[in-house]
């Protein structure tokens, strides 16, 4: 057998109270696309951080091409040929594309030369990108290209990609895969982290599954079904969300000719959006982030002002009613940004439960807060949505992303909304928890609530929504019944691949 490119053996890393990696052994071959699978908190991030030199393992060794490899910092890792594309982009909004790329390089050439090389590489791999643009103005897909090109310019031997497709349209995903396969042919190994098992089956040569920090098995994704992989990750069998048959009832939420400016300089204005959602119906709104999703949620929740008569609930105008009063009526919303928007990071779960549940759960009376009741409500969310935390007194910040997501969604679902608007319900949540959240949303609809689900995960929208519409550049396509739509049509509804083209070298 040939020497693997990178061999990890017995890597262990413990944090206070939790063992993130427990004796992990893993080989990645030259030109191999290797998937790393696991639930939230299974230790995937810690493992790649060790490889990238951001975290030092407590014990265990790494070898690259048979020689010892122990990067002291990311710089050393990059020097050894390891590149990483982060899940949360490590980009600088106020700087230009070229400046961002220069920051990730050891010895960047002068700016003019660098700009030429960026153009060359971006054309070679079919990732068009102008070096002079300010990163804050780019779409999520374009930002990812910046990260990828930053890595490619350094001729990496191993490219680590953390959830690269979560922000891309199907066409963009195809082009990314073409790029990755091309890299593989050139001998670059790729360590690929994703929750999307079908993608892994389509792309990866091998997969390693982590559970509770341990390597619990490997498989060849092509020969393994997505369900089997998911069950290896969870360690038990998995339930598929099922929608109960139901008829659409009266119109609950209706939006007519909605136009609204974005409050943020980098945001997207909404342009003439119209749709209605009936009781018991789930409307899925797809689209790449930054096309007006946050603004739409803001208008529906009442955070952003809109013109008279543009949004109405059971026929009554909502436009002049603020978020808290809308909650009282039964119109609830769960925004995408968990820390800082959906939850106050430094406040406890009880306090966070109080913040949105006050009105509907009767947690306050004549201005005085009933903390006992609020704690009970928080505990109910924790049990019913399997939020893993020591208790409701813990700060929201201390929860992992997936766990906090379960809490935030659970908090709204348990308030028995009549209309619920959710942005990215399962973003960063593992397969089992995502299935639970989707099931809860479907149950809610079956109970007669009208749901608007805004998501970038098209598989999710296809699975749970009755009708689908695409949000592109602030405009909403006409909603179509989900049954009968295929990926191709959806891609076209989403406005194509945003100027991407397939690699042609």
């Amino acid at each position, binding site marked *: 057998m040939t020497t693997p490119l990178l061999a990890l053996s017995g890597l262990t890393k413990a*944090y206070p109270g939790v063992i*993130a990696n427990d004796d992990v052994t893993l080989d990645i071959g030259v030109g191999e696309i290797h998937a790393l699978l696991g639930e939230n908190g299974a230790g995937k991030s*810690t493992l790649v*951080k060790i490889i990238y*030199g*951001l*975290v030092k393992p407590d014990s265990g060794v790494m070898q690259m091409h048979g020689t010892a490899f122990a990067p002291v*910092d*990311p*710089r050393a890792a*990059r020097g050894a040929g390891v590149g990483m594309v*982060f899940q949360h*982009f*490590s*980009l*600088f*909004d*106020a*700087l230009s594309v070229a*400046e961002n790329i*220069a*920051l*990730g390089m050891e010895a*960047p050439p002068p700016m003019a030369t660098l700009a030429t090389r960026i153009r060359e590489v971006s054309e070679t791999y079919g990732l068009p990108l102008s070096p002079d643009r300010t990163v804050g103005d780019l779409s999520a897909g374009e930002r990812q290209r910046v990260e990828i090109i930053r890595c490619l310019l350094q001729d990496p031997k191993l490219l680590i990609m953390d959830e690269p497709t979560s922000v891309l349209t199907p066409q963009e995903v195809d082009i990314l895969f073409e790029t990755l396969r091309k890299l593989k042919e050139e001998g670059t190994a790729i360590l690929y982290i994703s929750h999307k098992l079908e993608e892994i089956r389509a792309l990866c040569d091998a997969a390693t599954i982590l559970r509770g920090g341990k390597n619990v098995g490997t498989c060849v994704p092509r020969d393994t079904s997505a369900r089997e992989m998911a069950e290896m990750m969870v360690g038990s069998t998995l339930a598929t969300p099922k929608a109960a048959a139901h008829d659409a009832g009266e119109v609950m939420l209706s939006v007519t000719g909605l136009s609204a400016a974005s409050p943020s*300089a980098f945001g997207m204005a909404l342009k003439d959006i119209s749709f209605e959602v009936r009781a018991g119906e789930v409307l899925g709104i797809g689209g790449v982030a930054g096309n007006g999703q946050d603004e739409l949620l803001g208008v529906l929740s009442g955070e952003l002002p809109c013109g008279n008569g543009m949004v109405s609930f059971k026929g009554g105008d909502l436009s002049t009613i603020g978020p808290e009063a809308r909650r009282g009526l039964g119109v609830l919303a769960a925004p995408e940004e968990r820390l800082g928007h959906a939850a106050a990071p430094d406040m406890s779960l009880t306090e966070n439960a109080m913040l949105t549940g006050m009105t509907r759960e009767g947690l306050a009376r004549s201005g005085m807060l009933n903390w006992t009741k609020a704690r009970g409500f928080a505990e109910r969310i924790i049990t019913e949505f399997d939020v893993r935390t020591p208790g409701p007194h813990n700060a929201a910040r201390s929860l992992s992303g997936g766990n906090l997501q379960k809490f935030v969604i659970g908090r709204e679902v348990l308030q028995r909304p009549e209309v619920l608007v959710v942005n990215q319900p399962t973003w960063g949540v593992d397969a089992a928890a995502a299935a639970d959240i989707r099931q809860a949303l479907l149950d809610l609809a079956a109970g007669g609530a009208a749901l608007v689900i805004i998501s970038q995960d098209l598989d999710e929208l296809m699975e749970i929504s009755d009708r689908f519409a695409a949000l592109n550049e602030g405009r909403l396509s006409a909603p179509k019944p989900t049954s009968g739509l295929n990926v191709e049509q959806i891609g076209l509804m989403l406005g194509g691949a945003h100027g991407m083209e397939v690699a042609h070298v």
Partner: protein
Amino acid sequence: MDLSAINPILLIAAMIAAATPILLAAIGELVVERAGVLNLGVEGMMITGAVCGFIIAVNTGSPTVGFIAAAIGGAVLSLLFAFLTQVALANQVASGLALTLFGLGLSALMGQSYVGIKPPRTEATPLGPLADIPVIGPIFFGHDLVVYIGLVIVAGTWATLKFSRAGLILRAVGENHDAAHALGYKVKRIRTAAIMFGGACAGLGGAYISLIRVPQWTEGMTAGVGWIALALVVFASWKPWRVLLGAYLFGGITQLQLNLQGAGVAIPVEYLAMSPYIVTIIVLVILSSDKSRAPGSLGRTFHVSG
């Protein structure tokens, strides 16, 4: 009133000199803020620089050594701020306010036996025949070295931030410290260096007041210049040349209104005294109406997380 008593050439030369302390303090703070740190202790570092420079200049008889001591004094005091905010992860606003109060008290203590003494005179820079050119000579070439150093620092800061890799890294740290850390840059080390640069500049600015502008030592003699420098950085949208413009505008109008007061213009003194603040703010607010914005991580504590 007698406007003919005002000599325009001397007035413009004095405007440039009046602007120098603010300019020095502001350009230092600009670098600190571009690195993502909000140091409200400018006033404290200035007054500490003023007293250090004064004491050393009096004892050595050399203003040059005095200025070097002032820069060191300001930088050493800023190290205290760096320790509090970068190592102990204390709140930057509170630490900066404390630094100002501490600097004011410390300088008063250090300067007790120096009240009423005259410092050695700082000579104009010998620029030879340039200074003899009519009009332009006295305006631009008759100044002491520190005025030119201030201009060189502004130009150097601008060029470094815009063209050099060090400047790019500094801006990156100020823009998004988590991303900079993920790329392997030493956020705390870079910020500490920026804070010390800011301290040294503030110290120089303070010594310019005690050794050249006034020149003598009085408690609290910086009289709020540090705060003006702080405001200037914000109104200048964190851009070096706008800081220069703002400082010259402010220093210039301060000098002009003093001259007008002296000439007995029939405008109440209070209006004249507030004019520099109003004009500077109006001009810089108009300039900053473009889309420039504060560094993304400004004032946020950087905490390494696993």
